C-alpha cells in the first residue's frame, strides 16, 4: 500500500521532469480536453438534471409543515446541488467514464508496446501521454461541474413545477435566499481536486499495466474503484477544511 503510494508519487514526478516541448503538450491537452468533454457531457447532463429533479421532489415530500414557506425547498435544493451533488456526483460519474477510458487506453498502449515505441524514440512517455490527460481533466471537470449545477437547478425547477409541489416564483425566490458566492468557488476547488485525483490515479493504473487484455480490464476496474474512494475521502476532507 505504502510502496504503491511512493510509486504513485514518483510517477507524478516523472510527469514534469524532462518533459516534452510545451507546444506539443498544449496541443495534446486540447485534443484530450475535447475528447473528455464530448464523451462526458451527455451523461453529466442527464445525471445532474435527474438528481436536481429527484432532490426537489424528495425535499418537498419531507417538507409538510405549513409554517415553512414553500420557497425553502428551492433554497435547500440549491445548497445541495451546488455544494455537494454537482461537484461530487459529477466527479463520480466521470471517474467511471473518464477514469476507465484513461486506464484502458494507457493499459492497451502499454501491453501492445506503443509506450515502448515512444520511449525508444527518446520521448518521455509519461510527459507526452499522461500529462495532457491530467491537464485536460483539470480544464474540463470544472466546466462540466458548472453545467451540472445549472442543469441540476433546472431539473429541480421542472420537477417542482410540473408536479405542482411549488410555483415557479417560489422556487426561484428560494434559489435566491442567502446566496453565498463562496459556495460556488468551493465547489470549483473541489472539482479541481477531484479532476486531479481521478486522472492521475487512472493514468497510474493504466500506465503500470503488464500482461494482456485481462489485465487491461482489471486496470480499468481498479482505476474506477480507487478514484471513487479517493474522491469520497477528498470530499470529506475538503468539507472539513474549507467550510
Amino acid at each position, binding site marked *: 500500500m505504502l510502496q504503491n503510494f511512493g510509486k504513485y508519487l514518483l510517477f507524478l514526478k516523472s510527469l514534469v521532469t524532462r518533459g516534452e516541448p510545451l507546444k506539443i503538450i498544449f496541443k495534446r491537452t486540447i485534443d484530450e480536453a475535447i475528447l473528455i468533454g464530448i464523451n462526458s457531457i451527455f451523461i453529466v447532463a442527464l445525471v445532474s438534471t435527474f438528481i436536481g429533479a429527484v432532490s426537489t421532489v424528495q425535499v418537498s415530500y419531507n417538507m409538510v409543515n405549513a409554517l415553512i414557506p414553500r420557497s425553502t425547498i428551492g433554497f435547500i435544493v440549491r445548497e445541495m446541488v451546488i455544494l455537494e451533488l454537482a461537484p461530487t456526483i459529477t466527479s463520480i460519474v466521470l471517474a467511471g467514464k473518464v477514469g476507465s477510458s484513461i486506464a484502458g487506453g494507457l493499459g492497451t498502449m502499454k501491453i501492445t508496446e506503443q509506450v515502448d515505441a515512444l520511449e525508444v*524514440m527518446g520521448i*518521455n512517455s509519461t510527459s507526452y501521454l499522461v500529462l495532457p490527460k491530467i491537464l485536460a481533466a483539470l480544464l474540463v471537470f470544472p466546466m462540466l461541474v458548472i453545467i451540472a449545477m445549472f442543469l441540476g437547478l433546472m431539473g429541480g425547477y421542472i420537477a417542482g413545477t410540473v408536479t405542482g409541489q411549488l410555483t415557479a416564483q417560489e422556487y426561484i425566490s428560494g434559489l435566491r435566499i442567502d446566496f453565498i458566492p463562496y459556495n460556488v468557488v468551493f465547489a470549483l476547488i473541489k472539482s479541481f481536486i477531484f479532476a486531479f485525483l481521478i486522472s492521475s490515479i487512472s493514468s497510474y493504473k493504466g500506465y503500470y499495466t503488464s500482461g494482456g487484455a485481462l489485465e487491461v480490464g482489471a486496470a480499468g476496474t481498479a482505476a474506477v474503484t480507487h478514484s471513487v474512494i479517493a474522491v469520497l475521502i477528498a470530499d470529506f476532507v475538503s468539507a472539513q477544511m474549507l467550510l
Partner: protein
Amino acid sequence: MIEIHNIHKSFNGKVVLDGISGVFQTGKTNLLLGASGTGKSVLLKCIVGLIKPDLGSVTFDGTYFTNNKLDIRQEIRRKIGMLFQGSALFDSMNVEENVEFPLMMLTDMSRQERMDRVNFCLQRVGLEGTNKKMPAELSGGMKKRVGIARAIAPNCTYLFCDEPNSGLDPLTALKIDRLIKEITEEYNITTIVVTHDMNSVIEIGDNIMFLYEGKKLWEGTSNNILDSDVPELNEFIFANRLMRDAKKVEEEEERQKTP
C-alpha cells in the same frame, strides 16, 4: 558500432540471458538467430534500454548507454529506429500519421518535407496509397511493413528490427530483407535484425549470432553458417529441408574438388 558486454537478465529467477557479449558492426546487417523463446527480443530490448539488464553494459559508438544519465540515453535513443515484434503501431493514428510521428517529434522538417518522406518510406515497403488506413484495418504483414516505414523514416543511425518478415509471404519477406540491407549499406548505419528465418540468414546475414538458452553459441557469417560444428545450430538450420539439400550440394562439390 554497438558493443554489448556480459548481458545477464532473469525474470523471477528464470535465467533468460546468461552473459552475452558481442560487437555489432556499422554498415553490416547483424542478425540475432535463435529458436522461439531463447531471449532474442529480450536481448534487443536490453540493448535499447527498454529492459534493464541485471548485469552487463551496452555502448553505442563508444558512448556508454546502459546506466548513463537520462539525457545521454535520450540523445542516443533519438538516433534509434526500431521495429517491434508486434509492430506497436499507434492505434489512434492512421498509417500516414504513424510514419510521420517520429519526423514530427525528432526533426524540424516542414509539413511538405514530412509528407514527401512518409510517401517515400511507404513506397519503399510497398504500401503506397494506404496513407489513410487505420492500423486496425491492416493485415498483420501490412502492420509490420508500416512499422518498418516508421522505423526508417527519420534517418536513424541504429536500426533494430524484431522479426521484420515474420508473417510475410516469401516474396515480400525477401523485399523487406533487401530493403533493410540496402538502407544499412547506403546510409552506413548499424543494424540488428532478430530472426529465425533461414532465408533471411542466407540473404542478408553479414554477421550472425546464434543464441541458445541464453548463451551465444556461435558467431559467423552467412558464408560459413552451413559449416558450423555446433550441434544445436545445425539442428536449427537443418530443420529446413532446403538447407539440408544445400548442404548436400555443398558437400558434393567439396568431394569433387578433393579427389
